[in-house]
């Protein structure tokens, strides 16, 4: 037998195989996900990863997106260093992803990294630093979407609603003094400064404006300053649940018995599950503001699926919001009817309203961050009673009335 035939046969078989394979198994759609999988933010990163894995698994089980399978491409941005987000970004784009979705990945460089490309980029950094470039140069950054509000919104919101609390509990603030205690981190500094600027315009006096680093063990000296300046409003802006728990514990230790004539407000942190566990009884009466949280039938169903998959509860905002982001994009792709027509997909995201679990998403046309609003993405006011955060406002969420915190004795 002459072997030229064998060769011909083999080559033919290979060619047929390749063609057939190419026709049957279409390339999957790649989703790039830069996540903080190691380092100090790993706990959130883990939740984001799980949310995306569940989303892709469910979508693929339902036949994929536009009939194509989805596949995740992870990148670790560690401690959110600029160098890393740049490298990870380029690697993901280089791998040919059609969208980049993350919970959060950075303190302000990400928009510039992903703005260079055309693939839609959805992030929940909740930072003005990330949306400012979009507002200033829409031509370049049209593909960057922030599916949360900006950090500054907390300050704007607090400057209005904090002063609505005293009349509701029948307490008259003894003065117009305010303490602002914040950690040096953009997410906290930006709203705290915004708040301070606004209340000063309203005629209040910021008597303490203290910036700390993460990891304060002893709040004693700062509490001493609170004691001697006697501000009627103490506002606390610090992302770290351990810092916040120590603060409220030491605050309640110091003032619990004799009392102090002050409301205590916190930005976001009590929504981190550890906070209540660590602070315990000391947190009773604390007022705080965060997202609408995880409730509603849609979430309950999601939770069931999550538990079935991972054998534990979803924890924190990003277990839910990251999924919402995925769904927003998937809906836009389905409406556009194509995945690599990025401008089309972005247009659909921009124009659509999406009913998610954490919010109803409508993007602000100016900076493409999620619009704040009672019926959109709300900032919800809570007060902690009996170890639970009880929603107090806006009206839609209100369950009961504010009460006087235990340390206000008058």
């Amino acid at each position, binding site marked *: 037998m002459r072997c030229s035939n064998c060769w011909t046969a083999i080559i033919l078989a290979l060619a047929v195989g390749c063609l057939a394979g190419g026709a049957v198994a279409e390339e999957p759609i790649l989703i790039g996900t830069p996540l903080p999988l190691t380092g*100090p933010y790993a706990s959130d990163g883990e939740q984001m990863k799980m949310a995306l894995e569940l989303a892709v698994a469910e979508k693929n089980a339902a036949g994929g997106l536009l009939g194509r399978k989805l596949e995740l491409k992870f990148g670790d941005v560690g401690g959110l260093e600029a160098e890393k987000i740049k490298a990870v970004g380029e690697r993901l784009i280089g791998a040919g992803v059609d969208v980049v979705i993350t919970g959060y990945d950075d303190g302000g460089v990400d928009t510039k990294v992903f703005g260079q490309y055309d693939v839609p980029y959805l992030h929940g950094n909740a930072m003005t630093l990330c949306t400012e470039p979009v507002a200033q140069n829409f031509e370049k950054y049209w593909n960057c979407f922030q599916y949360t509000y900006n950090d500054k919104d907390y300050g704007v919101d607090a400057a209005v609603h904090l002063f609505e609390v005293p009349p509701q509990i029948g307490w008259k603030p003894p003065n117009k003094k305010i303490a602002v205690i914040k950690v040096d981190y953009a997410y906290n500094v930006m709203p705290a400064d915004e708040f301070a600027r606004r209340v000063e315009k309203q005629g209040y006096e910021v008597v303490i404006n203290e910036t700390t680093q993460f*990891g304060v*063990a002893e709040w*004693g*000296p700062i509490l*001493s300053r609170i*004691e001697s300046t006697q501000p009627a409003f103490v506002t606390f802006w610090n992302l770290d649940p351990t810092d916040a728990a120590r603060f409220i514990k030491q605050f309640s230790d110091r003032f619990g018995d004799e009392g102090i004539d002050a409301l205590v407000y916190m930005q976001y942190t009590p929504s981190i599950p550890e906070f209540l566990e660590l602070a315990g009884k000391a947190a009773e009466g604390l007022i705080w503001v965060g997202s609408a949280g995880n409730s509603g039938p849609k979430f309950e169903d999601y939770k069931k699926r999550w538990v079935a998959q991972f054998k534990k509860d979803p924890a924190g905002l990003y277990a839910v919001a990251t999924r919402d982001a995925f769904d927003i994009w998937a809906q836009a792709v389905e409406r556009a009817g194509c995945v690599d027509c990025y401008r089309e997909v972005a247009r659909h995201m921009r124009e659509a309203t999406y009913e998610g679990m954490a919010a109803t998403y409508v993007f602000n046309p100016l900076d493409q961050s999620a619009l704040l609003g009672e019926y959109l993405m709300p900032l919800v006011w809570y007060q902690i009673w009996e170890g639970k955060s009880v929603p107090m406002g806006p009206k839609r969420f209100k369950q009961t009335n504010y009460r006087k915190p235990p340390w206000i004795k008058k």
Partner: protein
Amino acid sequence: MNIKEIINTLVSGLISGSLYAIMALGLTIIYGVIHVFNFGHGIVAVLGGYFTWLFLTKLGLGLIPSILLALVFMFFFGLLLFKATINPLLKTPNWEFSTIIFLLGMGILLENLALQAFGPRVKHIPAFFEGSLKIGFVRVNWHEISLIGIVLVFILILNFFLKKTWFGQAMRAVAQDMDGARIVGISITRIFGYAFAMATMVTGFSGILLGTKYYMTPHIGWDWMVKGFVIVVLGGLGSATGAVYAAFIMGIAEALATLYLGSLWVWPIWFLIFVTILLLRPQGLAGGRTL
């Protein structure tokens, strides 16, 4: 000048001081005997806390049995670590550098293994005592008083141990003159091994104490370690008593800086005190005496 403010701040300083002293204890013992700086100090402390937490919540043991069990664990962990890695490294010509880098590497390895094993969520160990003591306008938690007490009692016990037991005397002997120790029939490797194990246990214990106040994530150890370094150097390397002085000085400096300048000034002021003392007294507060 508000006297109430100052006194309360000083009390805060004492509390921070006791925490800093706790951070320094294990470091100073290892350095005092073996002359090795434990760059894995932080994670070892955190592991002590994590083990206690594990026994407390998963095995349902009481607080004291959990702590004791964790200490036993830490002791054998230290012994194993020494026998398997540090001891061979000490015999290499570049041992000072090698051990430091090795312990650094081990620190990051253990930190990330702990992250895998225990997860990234914050854990804590319950306070030892509830309630607080009130004297005039000063109010201190019993738990915090107990921390200060533990530091002081620990120093007393350590001094007793070092001065009055054969093993403690042998440790001091090794620290002061290794050849002398060998001459009187002390086995250096054995003393090193047990000293390392003991210091690991003490470091683990410090993690338990810190876990009640700082709470624990796998990453918190680096912070404890760097602060521990400052304290140990200031106190005079290897002197536990000096470290306690240094810790209280730095605690009070921190509290006063926070009160008058703002808490962001704490590190720059620490650095300033650090450089000044090192320049004036390179041997540290306790004056270069070992153990």
